[in-house]
């Protein structure tokens, strides 16, 4: 274990990717202790290159880095070899580690590319081998290679690749991100409404039940959308900051307001649109605090935000569509208001009140 192999794959914006390998060459199958000691004590750089050439060539062939499933062509950039004594090289308890740095020809991996590191069956290194992948602004990702498990598996760069088997949705989201980054942000935005945005769903339903007129609904939803898009952007970019302890109860209060307004307004008041606009600003702040938990890529934050917002809008439209398909077709029924709108609005108001009390008191 003291002389286990370590690999570190590093990729950053604007810099070529590097694979650093720390390996106990003298204890690997690549060189015997005497050969490694001779290489360490070579009288010139040329002699050292010559002595290490077979081992480095074997490593170059045996180590494989795949980008988006395609093998790259690796080359040795540089190396450092050192040892205190021949006896130390021969003792696995006193590892004398060498570091070899590999570069790649061809297109460099970029954010959200999938990378995989493999050790061929023909190459034996002191096991296990800890692989660390540092990419862009994400947390490093760790994998452990052994004689039996010689591949890191695909790792998406720039995304927390922690091995939490949280379920198929996460895997699907990661796959989406690998294929089409923009689509993935739309999906994440959609998920922030369905199923994660229960309070926003209830609010949208509150807007839905006010009026059977399509133009009224469109006007309200448009005002709401424009407003929350604005505050979402401002808050995400750090220009506006309001504590969730303030925003969340106010979001709940907005639900209560809209539902009670539904109960008492036979028609849309002039100021309803302004009120919905203000509530939209509030809900945008709510989205922003939820988005805090998701790391937006720095280099494409604006586009990610736009696509996220698009996902939110698609989610809202989906809610309205479902509501329409459920009860909207009853809107011409004479009892629609007393048998559908009022009970629904009472329920929405009750749910909003429950959230309001809970968010204030707990």
């Amino acid at each position, binding site marked *: 274990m003291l002389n286990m192999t370590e690999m570190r794959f590093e990729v950053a914006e604007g810099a070529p990717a590097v694979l650093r390998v720390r390996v106990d060459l003298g204890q690997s199958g690549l060189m015997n202790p005497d050969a490694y000691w001779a290489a360490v004590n070579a009288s010139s750089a040329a002699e050292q290159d010559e002595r290490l050439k077979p081992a480095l060539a074997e490593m170059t062939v045996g180590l494989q880095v795949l980008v988006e499933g395609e093998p790259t062509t690796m080359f040795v950039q540089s190396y450092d070899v050192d040892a205190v004594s021949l006896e130390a090289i021969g003792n696995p308890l006193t590892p004398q580690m060498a570091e070899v740095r590999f570069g790649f020809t061809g297109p460099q991996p970029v954010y959200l590319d999938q990378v995989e590191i493999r050790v061929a069956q023909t190459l034996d290194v002191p096991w296990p081998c800890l692989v660390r992948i540092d990419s862009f602004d994400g947390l*490093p990702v760790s994998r452990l290679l052994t004689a039996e498990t010689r591949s890191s598996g695909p790792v998406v760069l720039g995304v927390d690749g922690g091995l939490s088997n949280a379920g198929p949705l996460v895997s699907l989201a990661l796959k989406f991100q690998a294929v089409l980054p923009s689509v993935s942000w739309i999906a994440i935005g959609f998920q922030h409404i369905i199923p994660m945005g229960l309070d926003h769903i209830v609010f949208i339903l509150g807007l839905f039940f006010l009026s059977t007129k399509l133009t009224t609904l469109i006007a309200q939803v448009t005002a709401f959308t424009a407003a929350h898009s604005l505050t979402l952007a401002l808050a995400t970019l750090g220009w506006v900051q309001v504590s969730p302890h303030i925003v969340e109860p106010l979001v709940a209060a907005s639900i209560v307001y809209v539902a009670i307004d539904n109960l008492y307004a036979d028609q849309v008041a002039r100021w309803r649109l302004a009120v919905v606009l203000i509530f939209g600003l509030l809900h945008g702040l709510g989205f922003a605090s939820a988005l805090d938990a998701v790391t937006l890529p720095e280099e494409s934050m604006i586009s990610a935000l736009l696509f996220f917002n698009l996902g939110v809008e698609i989610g809202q439209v989906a809610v309205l569509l479902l509501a329409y398909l459920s009860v909207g077709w009853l809107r011409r029924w004479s009892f629609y208001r007393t048998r559908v709108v009022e009970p629904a609005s*009472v329920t929405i108001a009750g749910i909003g009140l429950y959230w309001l009390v809970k968010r204030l008191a707990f």
Partner: protein
Amino acid sequence: MINLRRFLAILSVASGMFAVEVAFSLVPQNLLAFPASDRAPGEFPDKWIHGSKSAMDNQDPAVQVHRFNAHTYILRENKAINYEGAFMYVFFGNGVALLIDQGSTSSPALFPLRQTVDDLIVAWEEEFDQSGTQLIVANSHLHGDHYAAWNQFVDRPNTIMVGLTHEEVMDYWGFDSYPEQRIEFNLGGREFVVTGTPGHESSEIAFYDKWTDLLYTGDMFYRGRLYLEDWDAWAASIKRLRALADDYPVSYLINNHIEMTDQATVDYPIGTTWQPDEPPMEMSLSMLDQAVRATENISQSGIYTFDDFLIYNEVPWAYTTDP
């Protein structure tokens, strides 16, 4: 003004939701309690499996599973498989289990740790009417002799792999100020305090279990050769552990290895696969105090001998105190 009927209806909906929440939050039949106020008893074995004179003739299981108490298990890798004979721990809470460390052998054929832990979880679930227990796979520190079997868990469903880099460890446990910070960690109702204890290794953490009062110190303090890569960090860590023990009651200190013999100051040579005369694994606060005093007296690198442990202050690991 809102009329009374509608107001009562709205209030009923809200009250109904609160009632449902309270109903669900009431103690269900199989909710386990881990009160921090009472020390949960437990037992250590009289003797751990300790290898054998001939490793190839060893008859012990690859992994010894010892039930310290109903919700705390201590595992030991067979020294005949790997001389490290590392200890591993499984702590259970409601709906979740924490596995600390994964031994020194990768091959599931030789060291079926995953199978052992899966069987343990199934048996525990059956005994306590639990299901769907999530497993957190974590490490005391990031030396390979404590995560060799990590890969055996990567495809396990309902499992969180904390990770094997410093950053992943810090992120998972929530360290903003490592190592001084004390993190309150709730394992399904069972409370732990997690703090940083570098010195042996730069990402080491210690766990204090408020239910059993056990203080787990990993590789930074055990009955054996304490290999220190950073004396200052280790000295601070030892004092941090003592401060923790001042604030919380500690029953025993538990850890990762036994390398001492039952003779004071004498250790087994590194690589030993048979330790018939090893002392218990658990340690006492008086031993911790001895280590604290050592931090005040030691100022140079070298090997320092104490009855129950040896300090290898910034010396190569292959050294031994064998004459």
